[in-house]
């Protein structure tokens, strides 16, 4: 299973954190610090896999964001690269040419999309179309409620 998924910028600012195991706040902060220190100094053409403690770290840089996932020993690293890529594709489809600012200003949407794709550290839905359709429906449901609430009462 994936233990955690982190998104951080080239300066080390955290943009998204998803933890699939229970950790204390201190431990989380330590992991985030370790990951940024591990991944950011790596030269551009190095391999995307690093061994860290007992986990395999898989990371990939997309434009100005680093996507970093921690895997257990028996997980397939190449497939993890595909998982990261799929998540980027989903974000791209949803936001339309996604960039880092989209994720900053709409972070809760990024989380919702992630929750439709991964759950409990495992892949939930393997079809891009299905995830996209679900997000649309859920957003419609939310909007309907909001519109309803903001309608003036006669």
């Amino acid at each position, binding site marked *: 299973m994936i233990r955690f998924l982190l998104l951080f910028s080239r300066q080390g600012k*955290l*943009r*998204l*954190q998803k933890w*699939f195991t*229970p*950790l*204390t706040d201190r431990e989380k*902060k330590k992991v985030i610090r370790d990951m940024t220190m591990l991944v950011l100094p790596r*030269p551009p*053409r*190095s*391999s*995307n*896999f*690093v*061994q860290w403690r007992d986990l395999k770290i898989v990371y990939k840089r997309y434009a100005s964001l680093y996507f970093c996932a921690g895997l257990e020993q*028996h997980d*397939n*690293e*190449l*497939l993890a*690269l*595909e*998982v990261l890529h*799929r998540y980027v594709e989903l974000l791209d489809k949803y936001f339309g040419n996604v960039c880092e600012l989209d994720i*900053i*200003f*709409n*972070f*809760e949407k990024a*989380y*919702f999309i992630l*929750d439709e794709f991964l*759950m*409990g550290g*495992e*892949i*939930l*839905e*393997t*079809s*891009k*179309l*299905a995830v996209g359709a*679900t997000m649309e*429906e*859920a*957003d419609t*449901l*939310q*909007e309907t*409620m*909001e519109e309803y*609430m*903001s309608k003036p009462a006669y």
Partner: protein
Amino acid sequence: MSPSVPLQEMIRAIRSARTQCEERGVIQRECAAIRAQFRQADNGGRSHNLAKLLYVHMLGYPAHFGQMECVRMIASPRYSEKRVGYLGAMMLLDEKQDASLLITNSIKNDLSHSNQYVQSLALCTLACMGSAEMCRDLAPEIDRLLRASNSYIKKKAALCAVHIVRKVHDLGELFAPAARSLLAEKNHGVLHGAVVLITELCERNPETLERFRKTVPDLVQIMKGLVISGYSPEHDVAGISDPFLQVRILRLLRILGRNNEAASDAMNDLLAQVATNTDSTKTVGNAVLYETVLTVLDIKSESGLRVLAVNILGRFLLNNDRNIRYIAMTSLQRIVGTDHNAVQRHRGTIVDCLKDQDASVKRRALELSLALVSATNIRSMMKELLLFLSSCPLELRAQAASGIFNAAERYAPSQRWHIDTILHVLTTAGGDVRDETVPNLIQLITNTSELHCYTVHKLYRALLSDISQQSLVQVACWCIGEYGDLLLRGECQETEPVQVTEDDVLDALETVLQSHMSAPATRGFALTATMKLSTRITDNVDRIRSIVSIYGSCIDVELQQRAVEYNALFKKYDHMRAAVLERMPVIEKNSPGHTNGESTREAVKEVQPAKVKQAETLLPQQPASQVCDLLDLLGGSEEPLQPNPAVGSTLPVLPVSTSSTAGGDLLDLLGGLEPTPLTPAPTVTVYEKGGVTLTLSSEKQSDSGLTVTLTACNSTDSDISSFTLQAAVPKSVQLHMKAPSGDSLPARGAAKVTQMVALSNPNKVNLKMRIRISYTSQGSAFQDTVQVDSFPEH
């Protein structure tokens, strides 16, 4: 869909802050506003407030005051609020917080909500942060959802069940039947969830594993469908249909086929098909191939398939993509034990990877190269490894150095090569080797007596060029001290002759002594070496005397103590100096893995028997029943071929801390001078039969202690072997048998065997001893017992 305006305004405000201090100010104001809003009654902007708080939390600021708000929002009937509330619960609450229990009820209600998106929120949150109690509470609900709902909910329920099983192992039984039936679904999401759930159940419980073996044909069917099927736009990734599902199925097949012939047979064809048909130009294809290879190597596959798998790994090694090379080496590492020859074929490529730029690839290549070293390729491999050592990154140096030492020890083709290799490592990476390298090397050097001249010349030259590598300097000092006479003699067969004068040598040692780069231990070595040279050189003994006396007032306590003692050796004990400082005997070592053919480790026995601890009874090969009838049997026979820590006990006077003396932690330096020779004790012949004579002599050591010496002699015409003595004494007497001098008695009394026995008789009972003698002569075994009732008192 309309973005949350208040949230975005806040984010913009925070980002426009130019300093950390300004940012903190903005955030404090915002948090105060949020707290105020939380306290207010229900208003339309609650979800925005919580979203703001979550953003602040992500920046690293404390947000625990939002926990109760999350609980309240989860209970709200509005979907938008539930959505953010559940998100907040996943971010702010975890199972260690008390507030998490409060949402259990909400989750329970939402699991049976009419709207599937609400249900999915509850399932997601449970799978993310559900504690063990929550899981136990809600497991039946999840099971119900697994069976009777739409595919959207089923797939979420499956992964939720996985989380529950991970938290509460016993609940696995509950989900097994539902998992089985899910395999018949068509929806890929549900199928994937089912496979993950079955994998989890099988990994945890071997009985469940047995039951799920029956699903192998179904899984093979599903997999075949994916591989052969045409293009499906929904699941296609670069020409491969649903690689995520394929990889999971392969992993499950691996678990089911492990150690089971029937299951492995059933999947052979499929694995061959996947291995040959999968397109390997893109990462996704390689991901599937990788999983296939892992599966093939783990189950009981037929040899053709195994060869195919190793070949795929070989192809991976040649791939341009670093990631592929990295995982190829990781997989080869796993099979290098079992399929050694197959991996050896790719040795060239692996060694090339040592030169790769990437640190991860280098590390893997190093581990794999060390595993591939064998007696046939040792010379070429060592060349590459030494080249690697000189340019490798710092974090890999220690590992590389110790790996090289191990390999050299196991497969060295000649002593000289071995010594050269170790010296090379010490010069390049002397700072990163382990501490025991120094005594190991010294022991190796003493064992190769024919190379002493060559070694000391080489070390002297190394010492002249660089005195910063402590291990090298220590070994060099020790050798110069021991073999200084060979160095001064000048001629040496193996290297070019070089004229070294006594002054040069003493200069070199003094440089080490005075250099600020030398560690205290190293200076200790140098001082001892200087002292030893006093017996090996002729002209400059006075210079040595002055060096030694200078250090008598050194600040370092260790050096001072040594210097003072050496001074004493010069002054009061000058007559003993030669004996004290003479050449050391070969050091014995207990160490595994010596297949070095050239040297035979002979245990050099001293005249004084070593104090062998016989706390664990070294019982002889005879069955225990024969031994039982002797009373109080403690130490049995000796095992002369077992390496005893033999003692270089020609240095009895120096009560030096043994750790820093050359090879000190291996040598068991005994204190105490040779005992003043006692008047010979009277001997009594206690046994004489069949040509074997056993005599006994005893001497009193203390009021209740007695040392008995047994001497055996063979007067027959044939040699006697496996001669062993066992002794038994009355219960209150303590017996301690020392190691005998040997176990063979050559014919016609050519040599004797002696064994000392220490007796302690605190209760002063009447001392009796029963001795059992056993030996082999002319191919047949003999055994006899004799009782000794009186001991000749001294």
